[in-house]
């Protein structure tokens, strides 16, 4: 027999005789990190099991298994990767500990455990809920033959009772090693928070529990002190106070206040007692407890699991109004610090030192907060937080100061218990009547009461009273139509232009044309699709614009079943009255839209193959042929980034936390749709470029430059973003340059609109508008227009010294009104990603411009989606949608609110009939063979009532062989002195180019100075079916007539360069 086999046999003989009993196993330590920091929860979440037997080791069998008590409710048996019970086969030596860890536990932590003499096992799991993951609201237990033998955490306690906490088992009252306990007794565990991992792996015990004696009391005012840090930190104190609130958020515990306040406004009279043992019956009772004073992430707090109730009767606590003092030095955080731990009220006016009312405003509507990982609301002092780059140049000290002020003014509003989807526990009407009792961004919140806490750099208020709609005062109320002034001077008319984001309008899964570029991003079900369409249609109709630029339209071409055709058809259904006398009614067919088709593949047919670029979404344009006619369409190809893939020092491709390529170097904008319209009844061109620049979300090559990856193959940190422009700021500069350069080739008035994914003072906008501080604006590297390098052949970036002079009309008009434009809400900051940039030539035409806050101001609960909205626990486990047989989504309404996540932007422009661009004739469209020919009577003519205006039109080209048999050239008798505009209703003029001669007759004689001659083009309106508009020659290609032989003489010098 070989020696090894012999030794194994011997070992097994000894081991069979030397087993410790299962009774010797106990939990001795548990670490739960914060729910706010998932990385930490993964890295540090752990539980320690100790074999207390003095001499014998213990090996697990299938009889003894470890479970997690998920959120106090769910019993999850842990397993290995192949599905076996996690601990089976593992052995714990006598007096040693085994630590169970998450798969993401750090090497450093593992080293700590090993150094402490412990072993560890990774709870990999084989399926959902069989891996080891605890994050503050969980417990663990051991089961032997079906019976619980030891446990941490109370069954049914779903609160975050152990956030950022280390629990160490105490020695028993006699100072001996404790024994198993199937029920959890908090007094037998020492609580350390913030968590401490120094003894994990070591079979150590905390001191035995000593019952507390309520004597030698310290007041809360003394503990809080006047500064932000307690003067008594680290000391044991005995405190007596009235319980003002019991909460489970942001952390589990209760708040107590001094029986008699100290009267010092600089010290708080309340304090948070962290506890997993509190219940709401305690509110109003007077308790006495002992604790060590701790600072938990800069919040002064106590810990207690047991206390003495010194008065069981109810003592009310009146909420204290928050008030700004001069001593706060202008820092709102200093104001809140004075109230930390106290029950407070948000009053109508927080700051008596300033004129008017300063109160708390909703800065983020009720939604999932990715910082705290739960549904809540964020308020800001005085005003909603504006993204720092909305008013100040990105990277400037002013922008940094604005960011700091946002941090200072922030107050997160928590419910006392975790809010279910769609439920605000302290505002039940929100769910009961969501369409009347809604909360919008910029609402003033008045009369909200709660306790103030501080954690992770933010103050929070956990609400204790029940609110009604009057507690949310609407500063920007809901409206059913945008507030846009279109009052024009006499004789003039307005053209309304809007930009609308469609929130990924995808019809390909529901019968629409195939999307060639990937999966559907929009509605998941037909039910959702109908809801999405209904909302968008309502919004577009309410915009009532003459032309609308659309973003996030499915990129499935311009055929009959394209997304844009589907949408515009539905919008048009409402406009059904054809009677001419109702032409100005909202339901008149005059308001019908048609989409602008782009024959992108040049096959002379608009179909599904005309998809643009290579993204699943594209932009689109719809317009009213009654107001505008297309002169020219084109697509501006936007730059692509084709940069190297981001690799580590070993030239390995780095992946992110989702195992996707961190940055491939390949990035795209959506191609810009550019349409030159003629404003009907004028000869004015209006060019609209509809854009959707690369987003701020996923990164570009530039964002990782300077990051030291070392040999890491996985990178979970975000890219640095010092100037808060988000990802791809340089790439958006490249896009802005390309767009502006192409637009420079187009004559006439121009508008760049759409989602430029840049706040108003970010680099791309500075390029398009102006760069008053000469900020260095740098493009992305390795950008191409098609296959052509955009700048340098070697891909190096360039600094853009030229700006293009467009006017950010939204910012300008809002500023004139003393307000700020915004169209998008991200986290708790507002800003404009959706812009209307006009050429300076248009500025004098602007009547008004606005954002219509129907989307960004609203909670996402009102959108078309069915996820996370059921009013009960009916959300399906698999897709988070309301169960199919219970499609209760109280938040959906067939209206325009939250039709998208971006607010629409609008501008109105004023035009005078008959005005033209230089060299362009009037463009007059017919309706029922009638065309109105405008005649602006010269002032010198001194028009008088009774004068007769006459018109004579003559075809310009005899070759047209026009049938003028029906032509009626009316005389118009003036009814008023000083008439400035006459519209001749000419009948029966076929579509063609004409010369018109108009004049005034008075007593049969021509009034001197009244005569005018001008060119006009009479045409049919664009049809309501999208057509390919063929352009007319642009006269840049020479002439086909005889040229003089003499021109040869002029040849000697090389000629003018024909170059835009």
């Amino acid at each position, binding site marked *: 027999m070989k020696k090894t086999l012999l030794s194994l046999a011997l070992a097994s003989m000894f081991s069979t005789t030397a087993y410790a009993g299962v009774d010797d196993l106990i939990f001795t330590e548990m670490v739960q990190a914060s729910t706010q920091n998932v990385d930490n929860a993964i890295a540090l979440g752990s539980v320690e099991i100790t074999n207390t037997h003095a001499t014998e080791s213990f090996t697990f069998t299938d009889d003894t298994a470890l479970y997690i008590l998920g959120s106090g409710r769910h019993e999850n048996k842990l397993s290995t990767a192949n599905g076996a019970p996690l601990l089976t086969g593992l052995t714990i030596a006598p007096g040693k500990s085994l630590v169970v860890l998450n798969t993401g536990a750090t090497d450093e932590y593992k080293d700590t455990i090993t150094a402490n003499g412990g072993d560890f096992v990774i709870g990999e799991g084989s399926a959902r809920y069989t891996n080891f993951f605890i994050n503050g609201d969980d417990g663990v237990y051991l089961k032997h033959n079906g019976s619980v033998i030891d446990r941490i955490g109370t069954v049914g306690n779903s609160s975050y009772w152990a956030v950022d906490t280390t629990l160490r088992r105490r020695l028993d009252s006699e100072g001996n090693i404790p024994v198993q306990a199937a029920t959890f007794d908090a007094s037998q565990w020492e609580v350390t928070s913030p968590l401490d991992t120094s003894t994990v792996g070591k079979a150590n015990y905390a001191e035995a529990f000593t019952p507390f004696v309520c004597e030698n009391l310290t007041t809360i005012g003394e503990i809080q002190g006047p500064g932000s840090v307690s003067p008594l930190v680290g000391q044991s104190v005995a405190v007596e106070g009235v319980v003002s609130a019991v909460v489970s958020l942001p952390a589990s515990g209760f708040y107590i206040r001094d029986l008699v306040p100290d009267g010092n406004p600089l010290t708080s009279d309340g304090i948070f007692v962290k506890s997993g043992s509190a219940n709401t019956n305690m509110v109003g009772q007077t308790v006495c407890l002992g604790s060590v004073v701790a600072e938990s992430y800069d919040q002064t707090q106590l810990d207690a699991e047991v206390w003495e109730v010194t008065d069981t009767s109810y003592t009310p606590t009146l909420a204290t109004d928050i008030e700004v003092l001069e001593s706060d030095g202008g820092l709102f955080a200093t104001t809140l610090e004075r109230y930390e731990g106290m029950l407070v009220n948000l009053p109508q006016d927080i700051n008596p030192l300033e004129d008017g009312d300063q109160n708390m405003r909703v800065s983020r509507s009720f939604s999932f907060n990715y910082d705290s990982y739960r549904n809540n609301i964020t308020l800001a002092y005085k005003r909603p937080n504006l993204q720092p780059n909305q008013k100040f140049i990105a990277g400037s000290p002013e922008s940094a100061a604005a960011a700091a002020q946002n941090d200072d003014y922030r107050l997160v509003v928590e419910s006392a218990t975790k809010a279910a989807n769609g439920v605000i526990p302290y505002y039940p009407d929100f769910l009961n009547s969501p369409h009347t009792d809604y909360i919008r961004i910029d609402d003033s919140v008045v009369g909200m009461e709660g306790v103030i806490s501080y954690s992770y750099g933010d103050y929070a208020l956990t609400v204790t009273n029940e609110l009604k709609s009057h507690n949310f005062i609407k500063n920007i109320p809901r409206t059913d139509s945008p507030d846009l002034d279109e009052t024009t001077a006499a004789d003039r008319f307005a053209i309304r232009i809007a930009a609308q984001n469609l929130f990924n309008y995808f019809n390909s899964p529901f019968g629409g044309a195939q999307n060639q570029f990937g999966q559907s991003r929009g509605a998941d079900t037909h039910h959702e699709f109908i809801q999405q369409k209904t909302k968008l249609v309502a919004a577009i109709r309410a915009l009532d614009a003459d032309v609308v630029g659309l973003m996030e339209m499915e990129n499935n071409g311009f055929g009959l079943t394209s997304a844009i055709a589907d949408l515009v058809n539905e919008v048009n259904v409402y406009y059904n009255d054809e009677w001419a006398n109702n032409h100005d009614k909202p339901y008149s067919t005059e308001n019908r839209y048609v989409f602008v088709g782009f024959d992108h593949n040049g096959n002379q047919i608009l179909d599904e193959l005309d998809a643009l670029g290579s993204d699943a979404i594209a932009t689109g344009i719809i317009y009213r042929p009654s107001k505008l006619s297309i002169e020219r369409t*084109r697509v501006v190809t936007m730059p692509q980034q084709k940069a190297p893939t981001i690799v580590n020092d070993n030239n390995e491709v780095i992946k992110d936390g989702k195992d996707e390529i961190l940055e491939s170097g390949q990035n795209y904008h959506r191609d810009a749709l550019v349409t030159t319209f003629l404003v009907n009844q004028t000869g004015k061109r209006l060019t609209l470029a509809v854009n959707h620049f690369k987003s701020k979300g996923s990164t570009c090559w530039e964002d990782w430059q300077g990051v030291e990856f070392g040999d890491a193959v996985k990178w979970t940190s975000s890219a640095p973003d010092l100037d808060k422009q988000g990802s791809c700021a340089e790439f958006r500069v490249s896009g802005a340059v390309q767009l502006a350069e192409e637009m420079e080739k187009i004559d006439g008035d121009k508008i760049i609109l759409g989602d430029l994914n840049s706040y108003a003072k970010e680099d791309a906008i500075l390029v398009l508008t102006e760069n008053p501080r000469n900020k260095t604006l740098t493009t992305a590297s390795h950008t191409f227009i098609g296959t052509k390098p955009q700048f340098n052949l070697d891909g190096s970036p360039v600094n853009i010294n030229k700006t293009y002079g467009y006017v950010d009309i939204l910012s300008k008009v809002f500023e004139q009104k003393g307000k700020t434009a915004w169209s998008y809400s991200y986290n708790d900051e507002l800003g404009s990603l959706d812009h209307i940039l006009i050429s300076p030539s248009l500025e004098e035409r602007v009547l008004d411009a606005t954002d219509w806050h129907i989307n960004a101001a609203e909670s996402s609960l009102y959108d078309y989606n069915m996820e996370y909205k059921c009013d009960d626990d009916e959300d399906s486990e698999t897709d988070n949608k309301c169960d199919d047989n219970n499609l209760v989504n109280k938040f959906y309404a067939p209206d325009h609110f939250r039709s998208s996540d971006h607010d629409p932007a609008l501008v109105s422009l004023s035009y005078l009939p008959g005005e033209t661009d230089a060299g362009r004739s009037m463009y007059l469209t017919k309706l029922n063979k009638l065309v109105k020919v405008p005649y602006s009577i010269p002032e010198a003519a001194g028009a008088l009532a009774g004068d007769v205006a006459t018109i004579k039109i003559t075809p310009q080209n005899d070759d047209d062989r026009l049938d003028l048999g029906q032509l009626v050239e009316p005389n118009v008798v003036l009814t008023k002195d000083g008439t400035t505009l006459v519209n001749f209703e000419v009948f029966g003029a076929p579509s063609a180019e004409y010369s018109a001669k108009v004049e005034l007759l008075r007593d049969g004689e021509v009034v001197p100075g009244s005569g005018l001659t001008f060119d006009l083009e009479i045409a049919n309106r664009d049809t309501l079916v999208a057509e390919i508009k*063929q352009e007319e020659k*642009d006269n*840049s*290609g*020479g002439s086909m007539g005889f040229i003089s032989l003499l021109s040869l003489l002029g040849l000697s010098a*090389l*000629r003018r*360069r024909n170059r835009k």
Partner: protein
Amino acid sequence: MLRKTTVAIALASLFCATGASAVALQQSDNGDYIRLYGEVGVGGHFATNPDYNHDEFYDTKGFVDDSFATMGVKGERSNFIYRLELDYQRRNWLGGDGEFELAIDKMYLGYRFDEYQWVQFGLTDTAFDRYDHYGDFTFNKAVETGEAGDQENTIKYEAKFNNVFYGVSYSYDGKHKSGAAQGDIVNGYVGWKADMFSGVFGLESRAGSDGISKYGEQKLMGFGVRVEVMPKLTLGFNAFLEDEDLATRKSGDVYLAYETFRNVGATLSAKYDYSQSTQVIASINHEEYESWDIEGPNFDYTQLPYAFGKERRWASLGANYYPAKGIVLSIEGRVGEAPEAAYAYARMYF
């Protein structure tokens, strides 16, 4: 429509004393005549190079056939002149299909004022066409001057005195060799010919198609010189500078947004008469088309490879061998950024 390359070749051969030939069908004492003439040529381009194929070949493959035949009748009666010429040629240029086609290349009537001056009306080559490669001795073409070539509806006046020669032509509604409209074209030249030195300077102007085709206005300046440096060695220099407007986009059938492209080319060539029947010809060449310039605003990235660059430069060395009257065997090799590696051709004239 005759391809310009072959026009150049044909003209070169016509000027070449040893190559000229014709069959006199009638010859009168008063100078009236009728002559039948023509040629048959077989050969082509070897190892064409896709990297530098700008406008040369319909396909870049090992051998691109360039075989060619022409036959014509010309005559004079009482100072009235005429000419009818048929070509059978391959459409082997970029955008062509490589197949043969038969075309009427020239069809004009004219009048000879005297020994030195004449006019032509009809389908004929424009004035400068005849001299656009004056300083280029290569048998295959080197750098091509993009003048109008043959045109219909043309009036041409030419004069040739002892030393001075000049000509001018006007073509109504000119066309590109592809048939695309170019508008009216005027071109002309003036030259000086002497024993040691001769040269031609030409100009061309076209009116543009006004949106009908991609061709807009154009101005071209070209010149060629020949210097006999030794009895057997002649140097030539040929160059052009062109500003040509081309459409940069199209809407339906309408061409739009014409922009000016500047093109430059130059050839320095040398011809050495090794013997009565053998010539050795060398050239160095430079060509620069704005549409090739990848950094230029109008680089045509749909047509050209990404790495084409701004210009191409190459050199050639070749020989013409005349084994008998009316027969020429030609071979040429190229190095550098040339669209082909070699050219070989055999041709007989009658």
